[in-house]
């Protein structure tokens, strides 16, 4: 059932219930009031007659005359103790209004009943509904009965009831459809919005929805919708860009691989040529594996929730440096670690290790032979800072703003793809940023005034795990962890 139908039905039903309740109350009050007024009239007549008739019994002729009239539409009868008619109003049929038992009851206490009363033969109507009041008149047990017609009262009540029924029908006819129309008017912007969203879904249109000029809930709903839509489109655009970039990046090694294999298949290849082709193919395959690995890591990074476990950051950085000893030795580069006591911090140990690995790989790639890469771990008040510096050429200035974007390389900004096989796909720093974001921290890249690149990771340490009184470790306890230069 639509909101419209529900509201219309509900509104109609509520209006009807109110009207019926009010009507019943009104009519019953009206009836009670009129009844009281009739009773008042009867009492007055009875009192008057009592005064006239006095205590005398049996009644005199004069008394009978007093009974015969019908002042104010009231009629009277005087019944004997055994219930026979002593005297009565001229217009009433000459028989007692009350039965004998009723007469006896009236002798004990005043009786008020409604009764069909027969009229005298000369009256134009047979019977009439009347309110009857009877009470004992004297010691002899005679009962005075007075009656007044209910006709006017009953008619008034019936008319009131009929009017209420008519009113009810009118309310039903107006309220239901009225609520229906009002709801329709109120819901029209919602329906329009629904149709717009449907159209958006069907086409590739990106909205936004039209926001109604009214400053109501519906305008706010449209605004909220637009915010959500914009965010969704941004996410989709981001994903599409990633897929397009990934496609492009995958095509390059595949092109080389395909071309090399095809060339190797040509006739009359020497074993040396074939070996060279296999070497190139192996390098390209490595490149593809690395790229796929990084892409998978990045796509998983978006959905993986942080599962913080306490670990020693200095230890992780040290083992990362140890793992780089081989490449560092080949490139004649020393890696210096400057750190103090262990810095315990809750976080994703594998993620942090991966970020440090990426920074070290970049630094080693750009560090000149015989230079040093300086790594420092600092424990501030509530955050950890890991800095990696090299003595290379530094980042090209135009690369800095996009350093952490996917598929950007400093080499591209320099204008020429580098010839080294270690050239990355431009995902290393993107992965670093994504890991930092997951830890609620950030990564910054810059050039030092004296040359060389510097990348800093900074993320908040989970409270309770950072040790109180930890001093900045920089400058203290410098140690040479790995150093081909130092050894040779």
């Amino acid at each position, binding site marked *: 059932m639509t909101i419209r139908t529900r509201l219309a039905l509900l509104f109609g039903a509520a209006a009807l219930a109110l009207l019926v309740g009010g009507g019943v109350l009104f009519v019953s009050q009206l009836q009670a009031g009129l009844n009281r007024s009739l009773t008042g009239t009867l009492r007055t007549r009875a009192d008057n007659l009592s005064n006239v008739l006095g205590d005398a019994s049996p009644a005199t002729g004069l008394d009978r005359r007093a009974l015969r009239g019908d002042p104010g539409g009231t009629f009277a009868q005087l019944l004997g103790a055994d219930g026979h008619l002593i005297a009565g109003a001229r217009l009433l049929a000459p028989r007692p209004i009350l039965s004998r038992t009723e007469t006896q009851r009236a002798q004990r206490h005043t009786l008020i009943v409604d009764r069909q009363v027969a009229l005298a033969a000369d009256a134009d109507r047979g019977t009439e509904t009347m309110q009857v009041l009877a009470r004992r008149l004297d010691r002899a047990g005679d009962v005075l009965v007075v009656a007044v017609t209910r006709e006017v009262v009953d008619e008034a009540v019936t008319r009131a009831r009929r009017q209420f029924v008519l009113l009810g029908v009118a309310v039903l006819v107006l309220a239901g459809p009225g609520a229906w129309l009002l709801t329709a008017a109120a819901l029209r912007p919602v329906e329009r919005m629904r149709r717009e969203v449907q159209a958006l879904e069907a086409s590739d249109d990106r909205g936004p929805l039209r926001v109604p000029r009214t400053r109501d809930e519906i305008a706010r709903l449209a605004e909220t919708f637009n915010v959500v839509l914009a965010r969704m489109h941004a996410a989709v655009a981001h994903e599409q860009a990633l897929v397009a970039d990934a*496609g492009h990046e995958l*095509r*390059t090694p*595949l*092109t*080389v691989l*395909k071309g090399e294999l*095809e060339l190797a298949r040509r006739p009359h290849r020497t074993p040396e040529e074939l070996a060279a082709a296999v070497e190139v193919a192996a390098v390209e395959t490595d490149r593809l594996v690395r790229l796929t690995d990084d892409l998978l890591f990045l796509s998983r990074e978006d959905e993986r929730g942080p599962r913080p476990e306490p670990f020693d950051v200095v230890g992780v950085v040290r083992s990362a440096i140890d793992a780089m000893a081989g490449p560092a030795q080949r490139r004649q580069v020393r890696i210096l670690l400057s750190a103090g006591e262990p810095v315990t911090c809750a976080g994703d140990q594998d993620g942090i290790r991966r970020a440090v690995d990426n920074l070290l790989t970049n630094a080693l790639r750009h560090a000149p032979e015989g230079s040093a890469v300086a790594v420092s771990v600092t424990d501030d008040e509530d955050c950890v800072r890991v800095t990696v510096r090299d003595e290379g050429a530094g980042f090209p200035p135009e690369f800095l703003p996009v350093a952490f974007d996917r598929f950007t390389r400093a080499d591209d900004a320099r204008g020429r793809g580098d*010839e080294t096989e270690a050239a990355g796909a431009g995902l290393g720093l993107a992965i670093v940023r994504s890991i930092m974001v997951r830890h609620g921290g950030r990564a910054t890249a810059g050039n030092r005034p004296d040359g060389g690149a510097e990348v800093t990771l900074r993320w908040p340490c989970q409270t309770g795990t950072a040790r109180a009184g930890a001093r900045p470790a920089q400058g203290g306890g410098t140690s040479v962890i790995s150093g081909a230069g130092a050894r040779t």
Partner: protein
Amino acid sequence: MRVLVVEDDARTARMLQRGLTEDGYSVDVTGDGREALWRATEVDYDAIVLDLMLPGADGIEMCRMLRAAERWSPVLMLTARADVDDRIAGLDAGADDYLAKPFSFAELSARLRALVRRGRPARPVVLVAGDLALDPAARRATRGGVALELSSKEFALLEFFLRHVDEVLTRATIREHLWDFAADALSNVIDQHVAALRRKIDRPFGVVQLETVRGSGYRLRPVAIPVAAVPGAEAD
């Protein structure tokens, strides 16, 4: 045969150089768009293999500049993105063929042979005669920079004339190239269209360039002449 390979990825470039050298080409390699443009204007290459994603100058822009400099070496572009828009932009900028990465080297080789076979005739992206210019890709025609409002038939007619500047084109030739078999050979529909075209490209500028060659057909002069300089000009 001398080929220029413009490719910024060093390994792809090496592979191309090796393969093409084996095929008997002399191969020059560059990874920079500006350098490529300079080389292509200095040396009349038999073919150019051009990667569209280039640092320095965009491959498409390079292609356009090359054609603008009236270098007609056939260009085979390599696209990494499977994006149709890129290919359209490249072809409209003056490239002659394209291959999407990763490609088969044998196919690259075959396409290069086909391109070289076609030779290097002038094939400008924008057709020009005097101050009259027409860009088929943008569907835009101008005289002296002023845009001309042409119907599609008039546009086709002007393009045909611009491709045969200073040649007398008979009505039969025009009909053969611009009308299908259903066209009535006896009607003067061609004369009407030429007249309409002339009303748009010549009259408003007070010049005569599309002239009637009595008894033969029509000819588009290489440059426009002011009406005053033509004795008894244009009775129609």
